[in-house]
């Protein structure tokens, strides 16, 4: 079949409500065949609702969902030809591993012997060989989720939906299964949509990340784009840039001049927003320097070290700047209460115009 002309999934102005409560407010998303998309967002942002609407478990109030050009928005889930992995595994406790993995094949009227063969091949692929006749209730969490993956892959779906399938597993199994799912996707070429609230999981698995906020898509882009160039303060802080300082950007002869209250202003050859801005940055962007250092392209905030820990490899300091505290790592040993400068390279800050809201804290 020739699907190449159409995107695997094309979501067009999708609205979903629970009763009178709107959950999705017009979501647009196009997913190419073979692409791995991660939908990232905090709980209640509508990411699971979006996935369940794509699967057909939840009715859309408006909009379209097209799979390879075919509108499925009013189609029952069994006609959509997808497979899903659930957070709760959703394995059938009254069936064996063979019964679970072979269920989809049995529905398709495949002969018993062939089902056994195909299931054995899938179990081999998932390192579950020989567990065919085991009760699923006698398996570990990691094994259960592998069986659920096998059950989904057995029907050779073109689209695999993952509803936080790794969040109930312990860290080691989670990372292992993460790379297994990714390599299976490379090998089998299915399109995947993975809903998660784990940033690292989304970054490592996905070709593109969709960040959702309150029923809308906040940003779509490659992991690097979303991480390095967040399009909004929400995305910036969701991607880990949770520290903020207020800056003032003014045009200067050679680029811009950036000034900060209580610190030295710096000239910078970058460009972007002008006027009062809020800068968002991650802990690892900051470094320690001399309080009166003057470095082009970096601003220096004078402060004092109030805390020192050694997590291994480097020291971690808490620097107090007026009444605010920032965490910074440094290789060198410093005494507590020492006056230092918190150096922030302007190129690594995410600058957004400051909203005219009272109560904004200023550094």
């Amino acid at each position, binding site marked *: 079949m020739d699907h190449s002309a159409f995107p695997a999934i094309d979501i067009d102005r999708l609205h979903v409500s629970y009763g009178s409560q709107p959950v999705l407010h017009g979501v647009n998303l196009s997913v190419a065949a073979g692409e791995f998309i991660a939908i990232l967002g905090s709980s209640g942002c509508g990411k699971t609702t979006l996935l369940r609407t794509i699967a057909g*478990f939840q009715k859309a109030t408006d909009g379209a969902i097209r799979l390879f050009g075919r509108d499925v928005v009013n189609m029952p889930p069994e006609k959509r030809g997808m497979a*899903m992995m659930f957070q*709760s595994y959703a394995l059938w*406790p009254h069936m064996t591993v063979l019964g679970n993995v072979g269920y989809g094949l049995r529905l398709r009227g495949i002969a018993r012997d062939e089902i056994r063969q195909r299931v054995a091949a899938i179990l081999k692929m998932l390192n579950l060989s020989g567990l065919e006749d085991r009760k699923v*209730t006698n398996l570990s969490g990691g094994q259960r989720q592998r069986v659920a993956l096998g059950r989904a892959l057995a029907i050779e779906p073109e689209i695999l939906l993952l509803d936080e399938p790794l969040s109930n597993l312990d860290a080691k199994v989670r990372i292992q299964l993460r790379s297994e799912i990714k390599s299976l996707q490379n090998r089998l070429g299915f399109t995947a949509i993975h809903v998660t609230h784990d940033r690292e999981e989304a970054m490592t698995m996905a070709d593109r990340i969709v960040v959702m906020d309150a029923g809308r898509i906040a940003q779509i882009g490659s992991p690097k784009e979303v991480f390095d160039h967040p399009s909004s303060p929400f995305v910036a802080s969701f991607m880990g840039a949770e520290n903020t300082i207020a800056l003032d950007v003014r045009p200067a002869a050679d680029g811009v001049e950036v000034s900060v209250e209580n610190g030295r202003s710096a000239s910078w050859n970058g460009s972007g927003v002008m006027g009062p801005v809020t800068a968002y940055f991650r802990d690892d962007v900051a470094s320690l320097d001399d309080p009166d250092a003057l470095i082009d392209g970096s601003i220096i905030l004078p402060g004092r070290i109030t805390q020192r820990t050694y997590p291994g490899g480097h020291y971690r300091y808490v620097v107090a700047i007026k009444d605010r505290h920032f965490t910074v790592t440094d290789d060198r040993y410093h005494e507590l209460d020492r006056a230092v400068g918190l150096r922030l390279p302007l190129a690594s800050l995410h600058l957004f115009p400051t909203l005219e809201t009272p109560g904004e804290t200023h550094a």
Partner: protein
Amino acid sequence: MTTDHPLTAPRVAGAIPAFRKLPQTRARAPSASSVRWGGYLGTILKGLGLAVFAFMLFGPLANLALWSVAERWYTPFKLPVTYGLRYWEVVFRPTGDAMSSLATSVSIACLTVVVALAVSVPAGYALARLKLPLRTLLMIVFLLPQAFPSVAIYINVARVFYTLGLTGTIPGVVLVHAAHGLVYSVWIAAAAFAAVDRDLELAARNIGASPLRTFFTITLPLAAPGIMASAIFVFLESLDEFTGTFFVGVPQVTTLPLLLYNASMGGNYQIASITALILLVPSVLFMLFIERFLKADVLSKVGQ
């Protein structure tokens, strides 16, 4: 929700040692002998309580057993005058009333189970899964037959059934028993279906199963233990039912309880006792079954 049920038993067992430690806390510090005496007294009281309970439970049964083997027993004698199995022989004689009543009772009970399940499985599923606007009201409707004096209801039922030609027929009795049994079966079936995780059904729909196929391969097997228990309740209720059978079935339909009533009204305590003992057998057997089938997570959802 995971599929394995947390066992409550170890938790209960774990609580007991903690309870035992209580008297040893320093704050109270009673002397060793008073602890021992308190312990003895507690044991004796518990033993007594158990004995009273056992007597209330098994006393009437012992009386039944005694009557069933008493060929002659009259005042002022405290025990039967002659023992024998003559009446057992009378009851189990192939031409005897008891055997045909037993057959009638069992077939009525089986039919009642079929009718009750035919209603309670779809009704229970709908009550558990669908967001029915009048869900609570519907649940209460199934309870209503229990709320009114049964004799008043059955007299009217008998009148209505008479005009329909259902009095004195097995279908008439089955209908009366089923209406009564639905109280249990609908509530238990709704709880059993509600205990099946929705994701388990969605997982089947998702990989291509139609709603009907999903119901029969996933939902029903998972709810089966609860449904089975409800069927057993209905069976036992039907076997035991007297009032409705009396008003609707008499004189053509004679079940075991009716035979028992006739025998004891006629002063034939031996036949009555033996009939009662026969009635007891399925109850005890099924109660053992129910204990295996009904799990805590189903029971906790009854009436929700």
